[in-house]
């Protein structure tokens, strides 16, 4: 039986309140105008240069992620609850990171198995015993959410390292405002353009103790061949900070400096968009040419802050994910506001048995995978695909988790035949520094293929502008 999906615009034959101004908007837009506008949007994206090379997919590296003009809308009340839940989760994840690199109380209390934490590939021995400024490890927490009903939201995964995509949140809004200014007069939409300013303030608020002036922030990128390079340069531009590569930085004495035309300039906070393994060849991968030799010694002795902190990845591992509600109870003494998706760990024999018997109904993912690669969507797979995937699971059960196929909500989307519901998810970007901040919005990804539940851009996903209405 086909499950019923929550349509965020149409319910019980009527239009839900946040979408009420959008019905006329689409009704009054003839098909020719629509395709004209769609072409205009694409041209704008091209001109700005926003592209996203898709890892491992080959083809055109300057491919655009399709932009769908039909916005996704939340009421102020819906958002208020989401905001509380997201901030709660971001605080708990950071408390967990400080704890597992310190006394490890949550492990000692028997709430999380030691093996999952300390034998985790993302656990960095090199930062054990270190508390970063303000006790923050993950300064930008991207939390992937899906909706299954009016008040039902589930967290799919947490991204504590360097979640990407925020440039789309900003660009999608910019383009919608340029193309449809009337919409922004009819609807009271909360702005998202404070994000770069908030990000800069967050980063400056975690400057190291040794910094005694207005902190100098830089963005460290692996370079222009990286798929998110556009975003790195975009954010640097909007924040008014330098975009640097490893070779632009060097360590001297107790500090890190950036080479500039006016000579070396001390750097206080590095928003890095490269993985831990490449940060410092003296500490991590010795063959890394992307990092800065000696950076970790400066970091650990309080001469510079690295955001997100090395080692933050141990909190967003898919096996650790199961324990986030436990973290919220343990560190904050609160009841989790956002729910986790029920998850089976294939490493546990009884869970494995259940998963193998129900592969046709489940989504199976690799523990360390991302981007929608190496996953099985049971209900959309053939018997043969399921059988092949079962072999992969059996070869290394601990590497897989399984979750029920969620009935992802849909939002009207422009398709060739007109307008049709398509499944969406949401990634808001929570900032953690002196304060915990969240701009009202995020990145809505949409599965453009009919019936598809996979929203990843590498698998035919697109993006939408995400509106949060004022009270």
């Amino acid at each position: 039986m086909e499950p019923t999906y929550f349509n965020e615009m149409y319910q019980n034959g009527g239009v839900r309140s946040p979408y009420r101004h959008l019905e006329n908007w689409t009704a009054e837009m003839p098909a020719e105008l629509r395709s004209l506008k769609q072409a205009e949007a694409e041209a704008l994206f091209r001109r700005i240069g926003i592209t996203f090379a898709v890892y491992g997919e080959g083809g055109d590296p300057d491919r655009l992620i399709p932009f769908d003009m039909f916005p996704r809308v939340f009421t102020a009340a819906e958002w208020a609850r989401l905001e509380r839940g997201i901030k709660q989760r971001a605080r708990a994840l950071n408390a967990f990171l400080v704890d597992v690199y310190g006394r490890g109380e949550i492990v000692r209390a028997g709430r999380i198995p030691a093996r999952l934490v300390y034998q985790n590939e993302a656990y960095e021995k090199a930062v054990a015993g270190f508390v970063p400024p303000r006790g923050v490890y993950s300064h930008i927490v991207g939390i992937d959410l899906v909706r299954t009903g009016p008040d039902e939201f589930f967290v799919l995964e947490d991204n504590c390292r360097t979640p990407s995509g925020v440039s789309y949140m900003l660009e999608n809004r910019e383009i919608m405002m340029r193309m449809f200014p009337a919409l922004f007069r009819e609807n009271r939409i909360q702005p998202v353009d404070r994000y770069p300013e908030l990000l800069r303030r967050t980063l400056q608020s975690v400057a190291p103790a040794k910094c005694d002036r207005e902190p100098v922030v830089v963005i460290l990128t692996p370079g222009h061949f990286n798929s998110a390079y556009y975003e790195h340069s975009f954010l640097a531009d909007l924040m008014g900070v330098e975009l640097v590569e490893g070779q632009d930085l060097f360590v001297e004495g107790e500090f890190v400096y950036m080479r500039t035309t006016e000579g070396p300039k001390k750097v206080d906070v590095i928003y890095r968009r490269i993985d831990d393994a490449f940060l410092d060849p003296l500490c991590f991968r010795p063959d890394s040419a992307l990092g800065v030799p000696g950076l970790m010694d400066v970091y650990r002795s309080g001469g510079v802050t690295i955001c997100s902190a090395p080692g933050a990845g141990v909190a967003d591992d898919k096996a650790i994910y199961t324990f986030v509600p436990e973290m919220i109870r343990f560190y904050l003494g609160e009841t989790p506001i956002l729910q986790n998706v029920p998850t089976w760990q294939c490493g546990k024999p009884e869970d494995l048995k259940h998963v193998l018997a129900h592969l046709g109904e489940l989504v199976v993912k690799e523990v360390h995978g991302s981007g929608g690669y190496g996953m099985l969507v049971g209900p959309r797979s053939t018997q043969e695909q399921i059988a092949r995937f079962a072999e992969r699971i059996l070869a290394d059960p601990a590497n897989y988790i399984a979750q029920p196929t969620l009935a992802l909500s849909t939002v009207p989307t422009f398709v060739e035949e007109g307008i049709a519901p398509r499944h969406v998810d949401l990634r808001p970007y929570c900032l953690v520094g002196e304060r915990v901040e969240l701009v009202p919005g995020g990145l809505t990804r949409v599965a453009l293929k009919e019936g598809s539940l996979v929203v990843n851009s590498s698998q035919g996903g697109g993006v939408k502008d995400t509106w949060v209405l004022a009270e």
Partner: protein
Amino acid sequence: MILTVLHLTTYRYETPVRGVVQSHRLTPSQFDGQKTLSWRVEVEGGQRGGGFRDGAGDWVQGYSVRGPVSELVVRVAGEVETFDLAGMLKGHRETVPPEAYLRETAATRPDAALAELGREASAGARDPLDAAHRISAAVAEAIAYAPGATHAHTTAAEALAQGEGVCQDHAHALIAAARAQGTPARYVSGYLMADVAELPHEAAHAWAELHIAGLGWVGFDAANRCCPDGRFIRLGSGFDARDAAPIRGIARGPGSESLDVTVAIQAVQQ
């Protein structure tokens, strides 16, 4: 026992380099088995960087040297009073939990032979400490001391297959075999005053520590078939030799680098 140390490391660069950055673990560990009487690390023309005690309890000190550099000398000199604790690392403060040292690295990945060695040696052991001694003895039997037979990147599995090696190989093999048995194990770098003619003479030395429930970390020197005593000075630890290296460094610039190390350890008082 009071030991004096003079440890000189000289780097020579074929083409002068634009700069050098180093990270040192060159300071004696703080635990009940050793008391530092005096200690000095000097880097010719170098600027001291940040220093800190890491989660494993080691003092880490950064250095940078502005170019052009054609020769660089790291000079370590000091005096340490040592006490024989039968290998036990008593009174050592650290944050990293023992479970973290169950992780494999490329140099310490156990192949079937290493796992088998660990299993066979520990079969019939009275307790975990006895098992550790037996694995250490088995490694000593299986790998003969043969300087030059292996190189810096030889893995534990390769050394065992070859049946020859130096202290680094003994430590790697012991770590791999112990971890395969579920015993946390790590690599330790330090100094050894080898005054007995038949012992392998490696003043810049390395051994392994295994974590034994109830006892904590205990050192095992398979190369010398013993546990660290008053002749040993402990500097730092890691997952493997690379992770525990007393000096890690990188020079900015092309051209090749040559390295010369001399270490002299003497007992000034028994």
